[in-house]
């Protein structure tokens, strides 16, 4: 069904004077009808590029140099674009591939492009929506769906075209645990229905549903082997950057001499969005300097809303927020940035400078901090970005983009760090780098406030604050909170 032989691919140079980037080197594998293959590789190992080449999009739409053979159901993909619908591709960022006003129009669009007789389209749309559990939202806008629903819709839209091969680029990437469960259930039904699937992933746990797995490292692939066998070789997975078992995590040693002074204090915080949705109802918290706090809770509990108050991105509807003992009211976000370093979700949307170096230097210059050069160089080196310093951040892999946003924070060296879901979508190497930095900041006495769905990370904190429906439902040491009754709802 899918044959790949000695495939090489290099992107054109990203700018004048920069080298072309080899993304795939001598990749070969075969996939028979109805088989499912997982391609596991760290961020930047060439997974998305492989999907784009197999779908006929690269180098046709991206530029670059390709060599080797790619055949889908006998069609030479490198010579001519595969027939419409022959190869389905689920993009990593599902939201950008949705462009119709309603959910059902989204599924119908590809069928119309195929020239399906109009009288058959309705039934096929219905079937696809039913298969991916989207019938209740069929008339809604794709925009208003949750992350998991958007992925399922994008999947329904490509599946409805009945492709010979379905390529899924990081189907679980960027999703919270609930979204992951939704998509995994959808993938399981696809696997059992005999669809030929190739899925890519940066984390070992996601390959469970594929009987075969191939490891991709710096564009080079191993031969597909049984997934159970691949997962057994832990050391190799760690080396490939797809696994970072908690046994290897650094110890988060507390700073010497704990402080009793307050870093962040929240008093009776209420917040409602302009559309009337009340997100926080009377939250009280006092976080002393140097404490490591994990904020946990289900989607929509108000975790990000709470965190956004710490640097003034949101202002209380009622109540007060104090940063290092000072009332945050009336201080602009750009000023609070001196004390609170804030990490947003979705790093790819935060990058705005022409080069990685400029991106990291932005905050240092804006805040008129001393030793701009030294701070930037150290931050670049800390996150292994020195080699990428002159590249535009927008062309980097997801993991590298996350590293740029972390380096931009590290360069500011703020006494408080507020991180919103920093681990989402990270591969093993990125995890290792993030945790090493966090351990270092913790030892230096930085106050760490981390919103996370990763319970193992929360278990390493000094204190866990559990939110549900805009209220603190548990607040205490990790072993108390994570084993308590509130944990069942998280």
């Amino acid at each position, binding site marked *: 069904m899918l044959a790949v032989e000695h495939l090489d691919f290099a992107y054109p140079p990203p700018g004048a004077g920069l080298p072309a980037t080899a993304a795939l080197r001598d990749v070969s594998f075969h996939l028979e009808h109805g088989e499912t293959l997982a391609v596991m590789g760290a961020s930047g190992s060439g997974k998305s590029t492989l999907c*784009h080449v197999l*779908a006929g*999009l690269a180098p*046709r*739409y*991206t530029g670059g140099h390709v060599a080797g053979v790619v055949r889908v159901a006998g069609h030479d993909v490198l010579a001519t*674009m595969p027939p*419409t*619908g022959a*190869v389905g*591709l689920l*993009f990593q*960022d599902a939201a*950008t*591939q949705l*462009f*119709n*006003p*309603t959910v059902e*129009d989204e599924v*119908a669009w*590809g*069928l*119309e*492009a*195929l*020239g399906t*007789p*109009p009288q058959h*389209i*309705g039934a096929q*749309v219905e079937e696809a929506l039913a298969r991916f559990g989207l019938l209740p939202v069929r008339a809604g*806008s794709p*925009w*208003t769906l949750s992350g998991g629903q958007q992925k399922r819709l994008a999947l329904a*839209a*490509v599946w409805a*075209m009945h492709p010979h091969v379905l390529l899924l680029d990081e189907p679980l990437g960027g999703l919270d645990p609930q979204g992951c469960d939704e998509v995994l259930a959808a993938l399981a039904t696809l696997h059992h229905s005999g669809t030929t699937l190739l899925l890519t992933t940066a984390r070992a746990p996601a390959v469970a549903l594929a009987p075969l797995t191939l490891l991709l490292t710096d564009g080079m692939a191993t031969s597909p082997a049984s997934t159970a066998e691949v997962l057994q070789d832990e050391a190799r997975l760690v080396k490939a950057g797809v696994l970072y078992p908690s046994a290897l995590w650094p110890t988060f040693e507390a700073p010497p001499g704990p402080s009793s002074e307050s870093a962040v204090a929240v008093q009776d915080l209420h917040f409602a969005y302009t559309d009337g949705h009340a997100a926080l109802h009377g939250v009280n918290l006092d976080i002393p300097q140097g404490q490591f706090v994990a904020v946990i809770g289900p989607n929509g509990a108000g975790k990000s809303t709470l965190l956004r108050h710490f640097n003034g*991105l949101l202002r209380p509807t009622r109540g007060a927020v104090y940063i290092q003992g000072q009332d945050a009211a009336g201080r*602009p*976000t*750009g*000023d609070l*940035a*001196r004390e609170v*370093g*804030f990490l*947003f979700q*979705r790093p790819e*949307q*935060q*990058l*705005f*400078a022409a080069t990685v170096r400029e991106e990291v230097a*932005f*905050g240092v210059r*804006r*805040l008129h901090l001393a030793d701009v050069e030294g701070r930037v160089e150290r931050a670049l080196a800390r996150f292994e970005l020195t080699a990428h310093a002159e590249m535009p951040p*927008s062309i980097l892999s997801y993991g590298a983009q996350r590293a740029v946003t972390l380096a931009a924070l590290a360069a*500011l060296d703020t006494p408080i760090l507020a991180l919103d879901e920093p681990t989402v979508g990270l591969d093993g190497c990125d995890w290792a780098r993030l945790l090493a930095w966090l351990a270092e900041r913790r030892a230096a006495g930085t106050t760490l406030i981390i919103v996370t769905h990763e319970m193992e990370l929360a278990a390493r904190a000094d204190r866990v604050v559990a939110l549900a429906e805009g209220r603190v439902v548990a607040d205490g040491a990790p072993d108390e909170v994570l084993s308590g009754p509130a944990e069942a709802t998280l």
Partner: protein
Amino acid sequence: MSVALDFYVPRDTWLHRLDPRVKLWEMLLGFVTAFLLPYWWAQGAFLLGLHLLLLYSHIPWSALRRLWRQMAWLVGLILVLQPFFAPAGAVLVALGPLRLTVGGLIEAVLLAARALVIAFIIGVLLFTTDQRALVQAFVRLGMPYSWGLTFSLTLRFLPAIQQLFVTVREAQAARGWVVEGNLFRRLRDYLPVLVAVIIGTLRMSDRLTLALAARGLASTAPRTVWRDLRMRPPDWITFIVSALAFGLLLWVRWR
């Protein structure tokens, strides 16, 4: 995400079901009528009729109020300025060369009412027609499909670009960006945000190009259309009745 450009209020009424091509035809007749009627009271009656039609079609008051709010500045501007541009009849107040006259006031009210009539005629189309049907109507009237798609994509991505602007501004604020000082400095401070939004928009369009290609935009097979527009008897009747009514209006006006 706020979709500020989407006026559509989904309901199942006669007007919602009416073929959008007929609605476009009605809109054209409405525009011409609004320009032909020289009486403010006739424009007022027209406006009242449009309100009744929208309320009858289950469009909520809140939607009508939103349109009134959007038109308020234009109507206000007309009412304040127009009387001085077209003085006629008895002078009410004279301020140097500026004269407020009865004729000027009537003219201003007529113009303001006409502007509102036109806004509410467009409202009738946008409140009761979903985007897909609207694009389909234009395509069926001869617009190439690629133009229709571009139009839909623009409507779809404008809110996304607006969101991108907010995201970038927040990301920069979180790294010490503060807007302060005079207007010139403020504009200069917004430059990095604008540059980032432009780059972000280009990236978004790159990804969209790939997504469209992967879903068969370049397909050589002729595109089919699911739920294509079809003129039903009520559509034809509305089309003919409105043409006759318009003819009658012309006859009454110029006989």
